């Protein structure tokens, strides 16, 4: 999708050498465990919990205002482990989302105010409608259009001529 041009105040953002644009007062915990692969935009008030488990973010990812990227816990036999969050390239996460997914595939679009539960896996080109609640441990196939609380596949995001 084509995003509108957004103007920002240069003083509020830090531009890293790789081209990432990070809001100065975003909450980045455990920044040594957070990897941004380049040309990412982390907008106002977003919260990254790299202290709990590593967070790997691909290129050209936009994390909207107030979104929380936080590793979820997985109960294994002996103890709980926190699953790293991997967000691949070109993902657009709108504002106020809570992302606890294990993996979000390339070109996904997460609508505003959605909740992506822990250990979920959204494959490539999925679109999550605003306000959806994706339940923990779910896996969605590529090109899913996901909506609802609890979230279900309601359509296909592939262009019509392919289906």
């Amino acid at each position, binding site marked *: 999708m084509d995003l509108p041009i957004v103007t920002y105040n240069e003083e509020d953002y830090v531009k890293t050498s790789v081209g990432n644009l990070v809001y100065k007062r975003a*909450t980045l*915990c455990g920044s040594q465990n957070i990897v941004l692969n380049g040309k990412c935009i982390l907008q106002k008030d977003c*919260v990254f919990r790299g202290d*709990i488990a590593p967070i790997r973010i691909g290129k050209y990812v936009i994390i909207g205002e107030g979104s*929380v990227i936080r590793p979820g816990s997985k109960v294994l036999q002996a*103890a709980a*482990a926190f699953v790293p969050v991997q967000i691949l390239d070109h993902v657009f996460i709108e504002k106020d989302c809570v992302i606890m997914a294990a993996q979000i595939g390339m070109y996904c679009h997460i609508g505003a105010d959605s*909740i992506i539960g822990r250990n979920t896996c959204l494959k490539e080109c999925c679109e999550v409608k605003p306000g959806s*609640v994706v339940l923990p441990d779910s896996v969605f196939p590529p090109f899913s259009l996901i909506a609802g609380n*609890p979230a279900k596949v309601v359509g296909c995001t592939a262009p019509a001529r392919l289906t």
Partner: protein
Amino acid sequence: MTNTKELDVAPTAVVVTTATLEGKIKFGPGCIVHPTATIRATAGPIEFGPDNIIEELSVIENLSAETMRIGSQNLFEIGCVVHARSIGNNNAFGIKSTVGEGVIVTDGCSLGPKCNAGGQRTLEPRLCIYGGKNEEHVAFDAPPRNASQAEHLLMVLPRYHKTVKPKT
């Protein structure tokens, strides 16, 4: 952001200084407060029992003059807004759920993501509120315990964050 004079933090609790803590709050042993959590003892004090976990962006506020007593082993997930009069043990408040001022939460209740509990009511033990339409159902078991998650957080959080020192 934190006025530590009115905080009573037990020695084994991990309360990060980047959380917003206002007013008279007491934390029992093993409590974990994540960064960006907001706990406001606005009109009256708040007392937490042992082993509670309060996650990011959650808001726990006491709007009444009486002490808001919160039991043990409760999990306040990301973004929840809780104004309940009192909370028992082993409850789980899901992501972005809200609990209104007149609600008394007993033991073992769980609210799903974006669920609401409002009005003047007492949530019976092991009540689950779930789904987009706030359906209710009394479960057989309480929500799973936080112990394993807490163990990892108690170890990891102090390494990355400054925590509020307990009063000696």
